């Protein structure tokens, strides 16, 4: 585990894209092996554990390990970084720096998904900001400086609030006298039926953690950095941002906040439900009004993350792991269809120099391959049965029905509207009669490059495989999530 991190970091200065690709394949290969091993033994708890003492006087240790939940995100990260390197094969502006930033993000996010020590988790969490900041601010769109610094400061402040929560946990567990940052130990004091912390302490700590995670999610009303960051980011940046960085928020909530301060989570379950529903409705309405394809996809991420939060809230409410499994599945599925859409937005941008619906129309005639992929991505986003997102939505909504009864119709409304805006966007961009619009430069019309096809095809494969064979994912995420959900059954 440590080896991957060091390896990916050490080679980043190399110029060529081949180096970047090869380096990124190493963690991909290793994580694939880990995924395979955990699929073979899903109930084995944390596997591939690494333990190094780091700062003994403060009880900080380098602990890494993966369970089913971690490895699904871990593998997704390694995959998406590789894919985005392939997709951005023709980057000409400072390519060495560009690829090295992608690899640095890889290191940071892999660290987040495998760290089992809050302090280490935080370090990787924050470290992921720096390469992302550079990705947006160097290779981004016209308004990139504003977007980059907004992204940076917004998430930085939120993370600091989260860090205060971590500190509080550390001191509550003993501080200088044997306190611990270990996620396992902190979780287990609760799981073993020893709630040593008062209710109000748990509520405050959960609030602090939730602030940090919610901004990363992001959910309404702390989402405003996301559209800016996405719209200005280069395509590869958007892919990473939507595919894995957003998942850090939901992952942290499930992995850290729920098991460590369950009473706090229960206190906020209704609020989480409300926030989730608000995010979904808000996203749906905003998406309908968008004129820019990429911006629409960015806002739709907020809606999808609302579904994840809904699943989490449901599980907290009832203690059934159904919602959590759905949430985890949604995180995974969204990690395929959303990056795919961002890639296609990138393709449109390269072809036309614009992403505005008003400048498109009938492009299916001119760009048949792009159109085909876009139809596929749209179907996945809408939640067509047989594709991965459908499985996730089904589980989340069943879980939410168990928890909140008929209130679930509110978020279900989102599904209908989301289908509307996805399909409407598709229609405006691709179908109808192809006419040349003013102010659009058609000289770069090339449909898709071969390397772009490869990247897109990987996404298609992922969506289909996990759509038809959801068991592959459900089986590995269920045991750890079941353990987390059990806590809420007891106190509910």
């Amino acid at each position: 585990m440590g080896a991957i991190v060091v390896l990916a970091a050490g080679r980043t200065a190399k110029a060529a894209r081949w180096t970047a690709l090869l380096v990124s394949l190493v963690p991909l290969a290793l994580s694939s092996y880990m995924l395979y091993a955990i699929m073979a033994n899903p109930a084995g708890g944390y596997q591939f554990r690494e333990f190094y003492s780091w700062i003994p006087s403060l009880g900080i240790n380098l602990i890494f390990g993966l369970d089913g939940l971690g490895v699904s995100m871990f593998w997704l990260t390694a995959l998406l970084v590789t894919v985005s390197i392939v997709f951005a094969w023709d980057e000409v502006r400072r390519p060495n720096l560009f690829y090295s930033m992608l690899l640095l993000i890889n290191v940071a996010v892999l660290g987040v998904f495998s760290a089992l020590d809050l302090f280490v988790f935080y370090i990787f969490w924050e470290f992921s900001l720096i390469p992302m900041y550079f990705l947006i601010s160097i290779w981004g769109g016209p308004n990139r400086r504003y977007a980059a610094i907004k992204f940076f400061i917004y998430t930085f402040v939120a993370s600091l609030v989260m860090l205060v929560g971590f500190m509080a946990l550390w001191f509550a567990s003993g501080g200088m006298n044997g306190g611990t940052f270990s996620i396992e130990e902190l979780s287990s004091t609760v799981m073993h039926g020893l709630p040593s912390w008062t209710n109000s302490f748990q509520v405050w700590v959960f609030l602090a953690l939730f602030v940090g995670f919610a901004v990363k999610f992001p959910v309404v009303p702390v989402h405003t950095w996301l559209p800016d960051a996405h719209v200005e980011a280069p395509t590869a940046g958007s892919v990473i941002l939507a595919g894995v960085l957003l998942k850090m928020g939901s992952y942290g909530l499930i992995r850290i906040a729920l098991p460590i301060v369950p009473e706090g989570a229960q206190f906020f379950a209704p609020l989480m439900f409300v926030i989730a529903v608000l995010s979904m409705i808000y996203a749906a309405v905003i998406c309908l009004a968008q004129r820019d394809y990429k911006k629409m996809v960015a806002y739709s991420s907020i809606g999808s993350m609302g579904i994840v939060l809904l699943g989490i809230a449901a599980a907290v409410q009832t203690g059934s792991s159904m919602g959590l499994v759905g949430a985890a599945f949604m995180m995974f599925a969204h990690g395929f269809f959303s990056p795919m859409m961002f890639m296609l937005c990138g393709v449109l941008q390269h072809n036309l120099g614009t992403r505005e619906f008003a400048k498109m129309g009938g492009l299916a005639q001119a760009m048949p391959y792009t159109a085909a992929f876009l139809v596929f991505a749209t179907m996945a986003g809408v939640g067509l049965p047989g594709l991965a997102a459908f499985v996730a939505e089904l589980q989340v909504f069943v879980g939410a029905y168990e928890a909140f009864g008929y209130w679930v119709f509110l978020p279900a409304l989102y599904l209908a509207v989301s289908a509307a805006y996805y399909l409407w966007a598709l229609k405006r961009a691709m179908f109808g009669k192809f006419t040349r619009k003013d102010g659009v430069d058609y000289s770069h019309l090339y449909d898709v490059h071969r390397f772009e096809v490869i990247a897109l095809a990987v996404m298609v494969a992922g969506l289909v495989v996990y759509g038809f064979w959801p068991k592959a994912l459900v089986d590995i995420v269920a045991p750890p999530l079941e353990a987390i959900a059990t806590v809420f059954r007891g106190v509910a």
Partner: protein
Amino acid sequence: MSWHEPLLALSPEILLTLTAALLPLGIATVNRRGLIAGVTAAILLVAAFLVLGTVYTLPGLGWLPQGPYVAYGALEVDAFSAFFKLVFIGVALLVVLGSPGYFRERHQPEYYALLLFATVGMMVVASANDLITLFVGFELASFSTYALAGFFKRAGDSNEAALKYFIVGSLSSALTLFGISIVYGITGDVSFNGLAQHAATIAGELGQPGKIDRIPVLDLFAILFLLAGFGFKVAMVPFHMWAPDTYDGAPTTVSAFLAAGSKKLGFVALFKVFLVGLAALKVVNVGAWYGWEIYLTLLAIVTMTVGNLMALRQDNLKRMLAYSSVAHAGYMLIAIAAAVLATNDPALRAATTYLIAGGLFHIVTHAIMKSGAFLAIAGVSSAGIGENIEGWRGLGRRAPFVAFAMAVFMLSFAGIPPLAGFASKFVLFSGAVQTYQLTSNGWFLALVIAGILNSGLSLYYYARVVRVMYVDDAETATTPMPRLKVPLSTTIAVGACLVGVLLIGLWWTPVIDFSLDAAGALMATGP
């Protein structure tokens, strides 16, 4: 006690004083910059080992008396003083390393001699066991730095810097001295232990029937004067006005010395006087608004906020760093303010030690980062770019190493992991969080919240420097830009700071352990 023991315990100071005195005499004729700097650096290195030897058993240095040890009743050698001495020597070493390439004036030996004298003065303050010794050391350090700030004799702004620094500094010395005289008038004692006993007596009588019900006004005046006097040195708001002008006008290496070293001088004094001498005077139960620790807390918050807000608007990098230095003074004040709030409560002893250790840790990391940043500016400006941020456009290509180091320093200032600045901020803020958890005193929460918001605020201008160096030349990427010739010696010094920032960030066990030792030693001398 044999006659030579105190001499041995003070051997680092003696060594440096002798060197400083001999430099202008002995090597005055050898006007070779590199040689003089090399000799000075070597001597500083030896002194650093000697200091270490008084705390830890080092091979070959077994003959040094181990602290805690009081020499001549005036100078205390313990982990706390050794800690600060190492910081001061370290900063001096970095500045000396960075100087030859930047500093080409005449009178080379005097420059290094003054640096050494200032360092000795600071070391005396770190060791001082009473207010008079503290003041003497303070003045030695101050006078040397006044002269250093004006070392570019023919440059107007260097003269302005020195004059401003001198006038404000004299005023602060006068205030300090007046405060000391009041203290002596009240207690008849100037040693920290005597003060502590006096304070404890007052505190014990507070609120008892028939006794006094609040701190005597005269004591409050003494506290105020001392606070103002030291406040100038640490550039605490509202005593910070001199800092930007002085840091801007002084030779950049001297700015580094002032911001990274001399500023910490005020902190040593604050630690000693407020946490040891007068800490017992804080009032918790009687009349909340008489408790001056609350004003310290407010000062900490105001200082960091004002510093950061002013830094936002600066285009001159040295001025920006000066204001950021003010802001960081605010962070360090957290340790003092919060420790004062928590001190004397036996239940909070461990928490207070941790908090003080956080302050000390931040002082170390800040010293390294600040030296590095100023030296980077010195190096780049001596290559002809200037100190305005516009001139730094595209530095990422023109001087890759220095630009990278500068970027790391900036991110470290902001507290981005895994850099040194994050580690120390973490300990500092977590100390405040812990004390809040233990006491539920809202002021700690206010400190934490202010710290978080300020970190966000400061990220803006720190990130701006990074952006200018790496991002803003994207448009002009096609035009070739000449490489800059950054002096080798400066590059080495910057490199040393860079290594320090990265190393401490990745493995801070030794530093935090030493900080905890030092904080424990400070607490041990208290009442």
